[in-house]
Each structure stands twice: as C-alpha cells, then as structure tokens.
C-alpha cells in the first residue's frame, strides 16, 4: 500500500518509473497489449495499428515541439518522406526491418536540409517556415511523378519477415508495436539524459542555455532531426500497413492533428504523447460510430461528419489550451495522486 511518491534524492526523480508498483503495472499493461491480437476483435486490432502509427509520429513531434519548443507544422510531410522511401527500398529488395530505420534516417536527413536554414529563426517564424516546408514537400509528392507516382500514389509490397508475409492487421500489429515500444523507451530516455535537458533549456531560456555551453544550433537541428526520424518510421509503417498510398494522405490537416495531439496529451512527456494519440484518434472515430448509429433517423448526418469532426477538433484544442494547458497527462497525474492518497485528500 502506497501513500504517494516521495523522492529521497535527485537521482530518483530521474528514474523512468517512480516506484516498483508502477514498473509492475507497466509490464502487465505491455504484456496485455502485446496479446491484443489474440483476444481483441478485428476492429480493435485495426484501430490499435492506426493508433500505434499515429503514436510514433506524435512521440517524435513531442521531442521537437514539446521538449525543444520548435513548433513544427510539417510532421505529416516527413511521414510522407518515410512512406515514399520505404516504397523504393522495398522495390530494391531491402527487408522491412532495415527499410524502416533507413526511411527514418532519410526523413531525418531531409529534416536537416529543411531545418538547418530555417532553424536560425524561432517561435512563430519557425512555425511559418515549417508550414512552408510542408507545402513545398507535398507539392513534390504530387508533382514529382517519377519518384512519388504523382497523384496515383505508390504501391508497397508486403513486408516479409524471414518468409512470413506480414499482411493484414493481425500480422502488422507486431512490427508496429515493437517500433512503438523501442521508440517510446528511446523518447523517455532522451528526456532524462543530457540531450533532453539541453532541449528543455533551449526551449525555456535559449540565451541562458547558450551561455551554459549548449550549442543552440546543434541541439535545435538534433531535435528537429529526431522528430523527423520518428515521422519517417511512422510513415514507413503506414506504407506497409496500407500497401498503397497517395499524396492525399499527408495533408496539412494531419500535421495540425499531430500538434493538437501533443497539446491535448501533454507537452514534453511520453505519457502525454500516448494519451494524446489515443484520445485524438478515438474522437473522430466515436463521432463516426455515433453518426452511423443515428443515420437511421437522420440520414443527412453522414455528410456532416467531416465538418462536425473539425468543429469538435477546434473546440477540444481551445478548451484544453485554456483549461488544462498541460494536457491529459496532468489530469492522469492528478487522478493517480488522488488514488495514492486515498482516503486523504490533497
């Protein structure tokens, strides 16, 4: 029985898990999650795959934007880079477990090319630079037909793991969630390392950080490249998951969706990415379910689905920004503490 979490030294605050119980609970959760294809319905597994892909992109953005404070509105475009990269690697016969990190690296490299000049500006200006980068990249996706297949898009052959064809939601589940686990652990560990602290210093007080010896340009570029790497891997997985993809998928709206997910989830924390990605994927989904349940009585509802999603999306962002700027992760922390202290109250 615990009555709260009490740190006795600074090292303890940096621990990945604040107690043995938390560690055990996490392990149980992960095992249950990995057994999902055995006990979950087809629908649940398919949704879990989509959430997992979004989650990787969101975790990457949470490093760039949440930790290092660089507002990136081009995450979807870097996913596109990863997706097209994987389509070429697969054509060259590179196995998928090598193609995914390579796609991530290529996205990171392009992130560096895009980022290096624009990283010399900050704040709003940086956001506008990434917005411009997004539109330039998506223009290339649409028009550079020899590489991207133009408006027709590309086909990606099924991933092959030593003779096992990874097709269908149940088989793609494992590659996606192995990437989620590895990249999630990496993100959590980056946050508590020197690099993560440097990111936070750059975000909160850039000039002081530079005086303390943090190379601003290097850490900004690194943060942007890490975010792009995650996006590239997510894009590669997306390509294998759908098997065929067009430029239409990587819209500016998707980039905004990812920023919204980290805001709703909680900036700068892996838990925030998880909660944000899950929540933001399920909001439009539950709207869809609701409208299909009601479509018998109100037939025109199906046409209103997309705009209604936009309205709900906008309201959610504004409400979270005003009333819970630290997101669902903060709400989670409050609930958790209330349970720890029960029956006492804070």
């Amino acid at each position, binding site marked *: 029985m615990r009555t709260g979490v009490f740190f006795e030294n600074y090292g303890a605050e940096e621990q990945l898990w604040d107690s043995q119980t938390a560690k055990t609970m996490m392990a149980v959760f992960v095992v249950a999650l990995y057994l999902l294809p055995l006990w979950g319905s087809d629908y649940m597994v398919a949704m879990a795959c989509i959430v997992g892909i979004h989650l990787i992109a969101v975790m990457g953005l949470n490093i760039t934007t949440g930790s290092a404070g660089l507002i990136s509105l081009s995450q979807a475009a870097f996913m596109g880079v990863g997706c097209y990269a994987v389509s070429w690697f697969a054509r060259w016969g590179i196995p998928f477990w090598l193609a995914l990190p390579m796609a991530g690296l290529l996205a990171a490299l392009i992130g560096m090319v895009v980022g290096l000049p624009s990283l010399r500006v900050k704040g*709003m200006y940086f956001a506008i630079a990434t917005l411009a980068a997004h539109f330039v990249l998506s223009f290339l996706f649409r028009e550079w037909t020899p590489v991207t297949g133009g408006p027709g898009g590309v086909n990606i052959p099924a991933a092959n793991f030593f003779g096992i064809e990874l097709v269908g939601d149940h088989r793609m589940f494992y590659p996606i969630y192995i990437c989620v686990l590895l990249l999630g652990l990496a993100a959590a560990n980056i946050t508590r390392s020197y690099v993560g602290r440097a990111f936070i210093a750059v975000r909160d007080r850039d000039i002081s950080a530079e005086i303390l010896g943090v190379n601003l340009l290097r850490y900004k570029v690194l943060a942007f490249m890490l975010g792009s790497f995650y996006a590239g891997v997510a894009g590669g997985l997306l390509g294998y998951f759908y098997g065929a993809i067009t430029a239409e998928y990587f819209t500016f709206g998707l980039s905004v969706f990812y920023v919204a997910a980290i805001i709703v989830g909680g900036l700068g924390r892996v838990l925030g990415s998880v909660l944000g990605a899950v929540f933001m994927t399920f909001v439009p989904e539950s709207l869809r379910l609701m409208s299909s349940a009601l479509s018998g009585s109100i037939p025109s509802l199906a046409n209103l689905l997309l705009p209604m999603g936009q309205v709900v999306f906008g309201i959610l*962002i504004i409400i979270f920004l005003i009333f819970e700027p630290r997101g669902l992760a903060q709400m989670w922390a409050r609930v958790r503490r209330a349970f720890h202290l029960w029956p006492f109250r804070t």
Partner: protein
Amino acid sequence: MTNLYIFIEFVLLGLLASGLSALIALSFVLVYKGTHVVNFAAGEVMMLGAYLYYTGAVVLQLHPAAALFISLVGISLVSVAIEAFVLRPLAGQPTISILMATIGMASLLHGSVEIIWGQSPLETPALLPRFPVNWGEVMIPGAAIGNFVISSLLIAAVVTFFRFTQTGIEMRATASDPVTAASLGVDIRAAQRMTWILAGLTGTLAGTLIVSSGSVSPALASVALSVFSVVILGGLDSVTGVILASLIVGVLESLTVGYIDGKMRDVFPYVVVLAVLVVRPFGLSGTHEIERL
C-alpha cells in the same frame, strides 16, 4: 511584339492581383502588430465574411451593399467573440498555445461554415460590373482593376485611420508599448479588441471582393495561407513593407505561373517564405527583432 504584350499582360495582372493580397496581408499585420499573434484563422474569418455576404445577397435577396454591411457587422461580432473567449484568456501564454488556439479557431469556423452552407461552391452576385479592358493586345478583366482600386482605397483608409484618428493613435500606442500606453490612460483592452475587429473587417472586404467575381466555397480559406509569402517578405509588423511586398510577390508569381507552369501557383508562395526566412527573417521593413539565434 506579341511576346512583349504577353509580358506586359502578366506584369499588369500580377500588379492588379497584389491589391487583394495586400488587403489580406493587412489583416495579418494588424493583428500581429497589435497583439503579437499570428492569426492562422484569418482565412477562415475571411471565408465566413464572404459566406455572410452570400447569405445576405442571395438567400435574403438584399442589395449587395446591404449584404456587405450585414457581413461586416457579423464579422465584427465574431472578431469580438474570438478576442474575448479565445485570445484574452491565453494572454501571456507561450507562442505554441496562441498559435494552436488560432488554428483551433480556424478548424471550428471551417467546420461550422461547412455544416451551415455545405461544401459545394455557391454562385455569388458581382459587386462590380464584369467587363474586360482592352489596351492594344493586352487584355485585362475589369474586375481585377476594380478590385485593385477598391483595395488601394481601403488600405489608404486604414493607414489614414491609424495616422489621424484618436482611436488609431491609441491603437498604435498599445501596439508599440502596452504598459506605457496603459499608464497614459489608453484602454488597451479596447484597443486590442478594436485591432481584431479591424483585421476581421479588412479580411471580410477582401473575401467579398474575391468571391464577388465568381463563387464562394470553403477553399477560399486556403488563400490566406499563401498570403504568408507577402506577410513574411514585407515583415510581420510593417504596413508599408506589406504593400511593397504584395506588389513584388504579385508580379513574380504572375510571371512564374505564366512562363513556367500553372502548377507553380501552389508552391511559389512557400518558396518565397523559405527564401525570405533564410536571408532576411524580419522582411523588407519589419522590426529587427532578435528572433534569430
């Protein structure tokens, strides 16, 4: 000589198109200057204004001028609401919060417009007569000239308002130093509210002018994103810079689209944005902030 005529035509079309983009850019600049917010919802406010004009002119069968008046009043109310319920509670928050709040606002307005008016384009009555102007072999649509003249007059009106009226001077004082302005008795909340209203009005006028030569559809909102090229080149907080930049970008864009490829229209503004941010982030005549490290 035909080549020369074509060149002149492209240049003229570019110059004339710059009037509207300057007007839209002005709506960004006013808000940035007054409250240090880059308003990503500017396009949606503009679109909403155009739809209100459509409702007045087509659905309610009013005279176009009356419809325009209704849409201006409506947008003023919407601007006040945005300022009071979204931006005011977020004053002093980090950049990302404010940026995302305007994006959330944009999404909310976009969705509402599609729910109310649908997604398909709607025909709007012309505010100006439709006539082409021929000058030798150069042919210019009359609406382009009309839009340019009206935009120029409106911009001149806004500049005059800021220079000579009491409210305009108070708004400039608030923009340059809110604390000093407040201690000198300026109601800075009122000034900031006024800034949002004025930005909404310029956006609405630009939107109405655009749709009055054709039809109105939700795609109108994306016009505002491409105006970032003008805003960034001119400098986020400089009215003069924006006017100059709109002429430069207008001509360059018209020439690129004319001589290279019509598809370049989609990407040209963003190439300009990236180029300017690398070379001269504060634009032609924006304030030299230390936004560069």
